[in-house]
């Protein structure tokens, strides 16, 4: 039936889009799980990724996936620097201070991009931008498919890092109990820097993979992505990486279905409403185990 095809197509697109949302959400939830900090600037790092892809494309003619090779390390080190010099000082202050510090960061990043690139929406044209790929008779956007594949690879790499390496063990230990981790000899300050760097790297990666699909405006897009990242992490439960994946996919599907079958202008609102409902009735997230204390 035609409508079943369309439904499958919508769901497929929603799932793939959700994968990228998950990538953004994982960065946020990782940072929260280890540092107990809600990073308001997360979406702006995504935008930073988008603009770096724009820059490399404009200057060097690189395809976004090629830019990833440069953008990801840069993102990681940028995160480390930010953590070292700014966040490490507010980590023990009341949680609002970290929130406000990241808010300030968000404004600084957004406006610096605005100053450098100007206010017009930018994107990157790729040759495969409008081509689709057929899986089992369902048409899937090529860009989204590539993004989905990249996301899966990244998540697998993260899983390996967290569960199969010493650094990963140290990260998990710090997330569970910072004092305890220090007592067994983990340098938590270094771990914080690494984790924040990872979070920024993931955000940048999401931005680079998304730019062929979307337009980026320096100041607005950042807040939009930050909000989406919050929705994803709260849906899954802050601090829970696996659940963030589920949350991301859920958000992607909810948005696509809501926009197709209900009023499409309220596309953004569906995620927000789900977010509010979860915050109110199940604040530990759909899969979370901790309670809503911060």
């Amino acid at each position: 039936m035609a409508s079943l095809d369309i439904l499958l197509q919508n769901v497929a697109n929603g799932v793939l889009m959700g994968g990228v949302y998950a990538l953004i959400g994982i960065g946020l939830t990782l940072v929260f799980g280890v540092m107990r900090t809600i990073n308001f600037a997360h979406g702006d790092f995504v935008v930073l990724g988008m603009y770096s892809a724009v820059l490399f494309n404009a200057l060097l003619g690189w395809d976004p996936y090629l830019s990833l090779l440069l953008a990801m390390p840069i993102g990681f080190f940028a995160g480390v620097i930010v953590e070292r010099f700014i966040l490490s000082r507010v980590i023990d202050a009341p949680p609002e201070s970290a929130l406000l510090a990241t808010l300030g960061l968000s404004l600084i990043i957004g406006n610096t991009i605005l100053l450098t690139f100007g206010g017009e929406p930018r994107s990157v044209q790729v040759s495969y931008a409008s081509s689709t790929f057929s899986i089992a008779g369902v048409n899937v956007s090529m860009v989204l498919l590539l993004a989905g594949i990249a996301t899966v690879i990244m998540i697998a790499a993260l899983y390996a890092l967290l569960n199969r390496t010493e650094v990963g063990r140290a990260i998990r230990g710090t997330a569970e109990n910072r004092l305890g981790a220090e007592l067994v000899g983990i340098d938590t300050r270094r771990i914080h820097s690494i984790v924040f760097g990872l979070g920024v790297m993931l955000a940048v990666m999401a931005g680079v993979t998304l730019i062929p699909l979307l337009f980026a405006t320096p100041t607005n897009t950042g807040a939009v992505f930050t909000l989406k990242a919050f929705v994803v992490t709260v849906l899954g439960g802050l601090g829970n990486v696996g659940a963030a994946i589920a949350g991301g996919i859920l958000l992607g599907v909810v948005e696509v279905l809501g926009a197709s079958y209900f009023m499409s202008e309220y596309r953004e609102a569906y995620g927000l409403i789900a977010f509010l409902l979860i915050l109110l009735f199940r604040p530990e997230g759909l899969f979370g185990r901790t309670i809503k204390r911060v």
Partner: protein
Amino acid sequence: MTKHLIGLGVLLAVGIAYPAILPNNLTIAISVLLFAGWATSWDLLGGWNGQVSLGHASFVGLGAYFVAIGQSQFGLAPWWTVAMAAVFAAVLGYFWGQLTFSLRGPYFSLSTIAVAEILRLIAINEEWLSGGATGVFIATLPEPFGIDLFSRTAQFYMALAFAAVVIATVIVISRARFGYQLRAVREDEDSAMAAGIDPTVTKLKAFMLSAALTSIGGGIYGIVLAFIEPHVIFSLLLSVQIALTAIIGGRGTIWGPAVGALVLVGAGEMFRTTFAEANMLIYGILILVVVLFVPRGIVGELSRRHIRRLYAKRAQG
């Protein structure tokens, strides 16, 4: 308290004389006064009560839309619509608060963003309610006592009255029982409950008062702009500006938010010439500076040092 009231009186006197002294700088003065009023109203909830709201632009927008639609579609004069807006804002604050006060700290702030965004989307999409994304234009306004409400001077006095009323409200509250209740809930909700204060009721009252006052300023802002667009007036950026103005100036103090307004609007203007739209950069830099080095805000730090000096003098005998 008398000291503060005298200070307010002095400021009022300066304000009344201002249009005669600097008639060409009225628009920026209006900005300073509106932000001072909004930030001080915000501070009732965010500083005195400790609940950081990042959705206050919703109330500004409410006030502006009530005035605009009331005037253009129903021919209602602004003083009626502003009063209606204030009541509506208080009611909205009540339900909003009921919805979100079970959340603590950053979760509350996140929820305020979400609610504000939903309101913004409603304003953009529900044409029958708000004129949709194209906005509403105020073409004519009544002339009370023959005063032209479109003139910058009249708007300046309205903004001055607004800021003065809000600051006076805070001065009175600071010495009233309500003020102590607010601060008790901010410092430690559980202890406040042990002392017989109902934190939820206190927070709701703060939210409703803050919302109503902000919306009055929003109505005046609507008259100043004369053309209201949803994405301008319900913007997250405006909410952030209001919150940051209060925080940088000094949360929980009487004059802090007003000082913040002076500093930020002034700095913003200076930066606007160099950076055009990126003048929010200064907000970002300042908030980082405040969080890292001046956590109590400008007025907060100054008053803390003043108190310490007084204490040291007294301790010396």
